[in-house]
């Protein structure tokens, strides 16, 4: 088991590319792309984000990274509609999407627990 990571972006390509990128350094981490609208356009989808969070969870919790403010609004709303039990172990990171996402993925791959994966994301500034 391990902490899962969800990448919420307005662009499906950004979310998918980030899974590609982070997978290289964290090949066994549970990384889920949640990008774009239901029609695949630029925007965010409540249903995509909600189901990504559910898929990312294996019991150890989920860290969600977002690109812009409206992605955060969508993610927070998705959280409100989750079962209380799952909701308790989901965290929305205050971190840059790509840089924080890679750091979170590496931490999750290393077996870090929820708070530590969140901290890895939030301390990332990505110029290592």
């Amino acid at each position, binding site marked *: 088991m391990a902490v899962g990571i969800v990448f919420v972006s307005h662009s499906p390509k950004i979310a998918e590319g980030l899974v590609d990128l982070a997978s290289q350094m964290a090949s066994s981490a549970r990384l889920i792309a949640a990008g774009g609208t*239901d029609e695949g356009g630029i925007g965010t989808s*409540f249903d995509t984000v909600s189901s990504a969070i559910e898929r990312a969870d294996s019991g150890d919790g989920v860290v969600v990274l977002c690109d812009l403010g*409206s992605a955060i*609004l969508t993610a927070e709303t998705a959280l409100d509609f989750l079962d209380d039990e799952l909701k308790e172990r989901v965290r929305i990171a205050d971190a840059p999407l790509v840089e924080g996402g890679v750091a979170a993925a590496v931490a999750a791959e290393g077996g870090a627990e929820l708070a530590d994966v969140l901290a890895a994301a939030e301390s990332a500034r990505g110029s290592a």
Partner: protein
Amino acid sequence: MALGTGWVVDWVRASAEVVKEHRTELVRLDREIGDGDHGENLDRGFSAVVAKLDGIEADATPGAVLKLVATTLISTVGGASGPLLGTAYLKGAGAAGAATELDADALVAVLTAARDGVVLRGKAESGDKTMVDAWTPAVDAAAAARDAGGSEAEVLAAAADAAEAGAAATEPWVARKGRASYLGERAIGHRDPGAQSSSLILRAAADTAAAQTAAATEG
């Protein structure tokens, strides 16, 4: 005259129509200080709501209809206004509770809860140049109209008037929330698209209430 589920359904249909009618204008406002999709977003969302209206149960309460609007907007809008207005309708539904009719007090409670929902979700304050700047004056004006003994239709008309003025008042401001906040001073001179759409929706509430009241008086 207290307003029932029929009014809520009329209001929602009228909202969908007015959003479609003003789609281009909302897109233009959002293109000036955002990403240009606000009209599309709301049109997509309200069209989805209308498509679901036929499926509601005959004995559905106003609150149940508001909740359907909430969840549908959240699932279909695809931009910031989805979670924001979705949360507004959801909290409004909560305030409506199981009531079958909404009197002036209940309407003020619903509007207040809706505004609080927008603020809870988006954390904007008055003056940040967001839809809050339509909702907060609307709530205040509705409460004042109710306190002055206004009818349900009068309460909603006061809300709509204040929302319209509130949306217009955003023009000279810099934005502190949402995409327009990226623009700094360049947002000056442009009306916030979300404030504008909220004022259209509140005007639809007032107009449908007035029509229902007129029909009841005639009938």
